[in-house]
């Protein structure tokens, strides 16, 4: 009897914890396309919101790789649809292996990049893609969305990036 009660109390506590946790952050609902702003310079991009992608990805022109104190760094250029561009230098955090259909998989460098979507500015891991045949130069993956956003696949461009941070 006591065992059952203890189990019930534990279940109650777990569900209470779950409820408080899920209510703690009000998730913002966004569409499958959104305007985002990247880096301190707030370069604006049209991004596709992709719940099917693990990591966020941006099209980049890689300029050079170098080392500082045994760390690998990368210099790259980002260009948006308005022809504006920025050059950035970042430490390479790791590499991701991208599985491709009918082709050998490739490795992409992963760096930390600040991205503003709506009112939230977050530093997340972003992989640098040197691809050209895509309509959107940025894909927002689950590593950016988790805990902050819900995606409505019937909506597009629900907000403008207005981060104050």
């Amino acid at each position, binding site marked *: 009897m006591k065992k059952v009660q203890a189990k019930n109390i534990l279940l109650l506590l777990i569900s209470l914890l779950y409820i408080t946790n899920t209510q703690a952050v009000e*998730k913002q*609902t966004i569409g*499958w*396309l959104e305007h985002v702003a990247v880096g301190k310079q707030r370069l604006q991009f049209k991004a*596709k*919101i*992709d*719940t*099917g*992608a693990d990591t966020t990805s941006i099209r980049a022109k890689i300029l050079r790789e170098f080392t500082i104190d045994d760390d690998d760094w990368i210099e790259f250029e980002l260009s948006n649809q308005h022809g504006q561009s920025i050059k950035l230098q970042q430490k390479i955090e790791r590499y991701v292996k991208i*599985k*491709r*259909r*009918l*082709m050998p998989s490739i490795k992409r460098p992963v760096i930390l990049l600040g991205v503003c979507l709506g009112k939230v500015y977050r530093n997340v891991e972003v992989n640098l893609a040197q*691809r050209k*045949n*895509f*309509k959107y130069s940025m*894909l927002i*993956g*689950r590593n950016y*969305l*988790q*805990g902050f*956003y*819900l*995606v*409505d*696949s*019937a*909506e*597009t461009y629900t907000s403008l990036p207005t981060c104050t941070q």
Partner: protein
Amino acid sequence: MAGQQFVIGWREWVALPELGVDKVCCKVDTGARTSALHAFYVDEFTKDEIKMVRFGLHPKQGNTKKEIHCEAKILEQRDVMDSGGHIENRYIIETKLILGNAIWPIEVNLTNRDTMRYRMLLGRTGIVDKYLVDASASYLAGRPASVPTQHPVMSYSHGEEE
């Protein structure tokens, strides 16, 4: 957006009753326009002058022992761009999808893509308006009902490109 909206995870269990699939794990993919099924073969044939496809599915992830052989009417053939940017002409079929307690028809393209982790992708045209996708959650809808009672209405306003 009218009416109550439900949150689903980025992975969900779904059933495709018309194809004899009672349970398959699908990735809910707002980055894809059309839904996709990854078959291990796709063959076209004609039955009573109607163009049909016969295809094989391995419904369990990482398991090639269990096979389901399906037949469906071809709705059309369409160029579809995959996540690697390659355009491929694929068969499109229409079939009913069960998610939780709801059932609705979706368009699905068939691809020979058995090496992919997820046997099915649910794209934007298959995610009906009342669902929001939470990238931090999985399997929120539970097991697909054997007798679903809800019939959400589709709207095909989910963008043109993949």
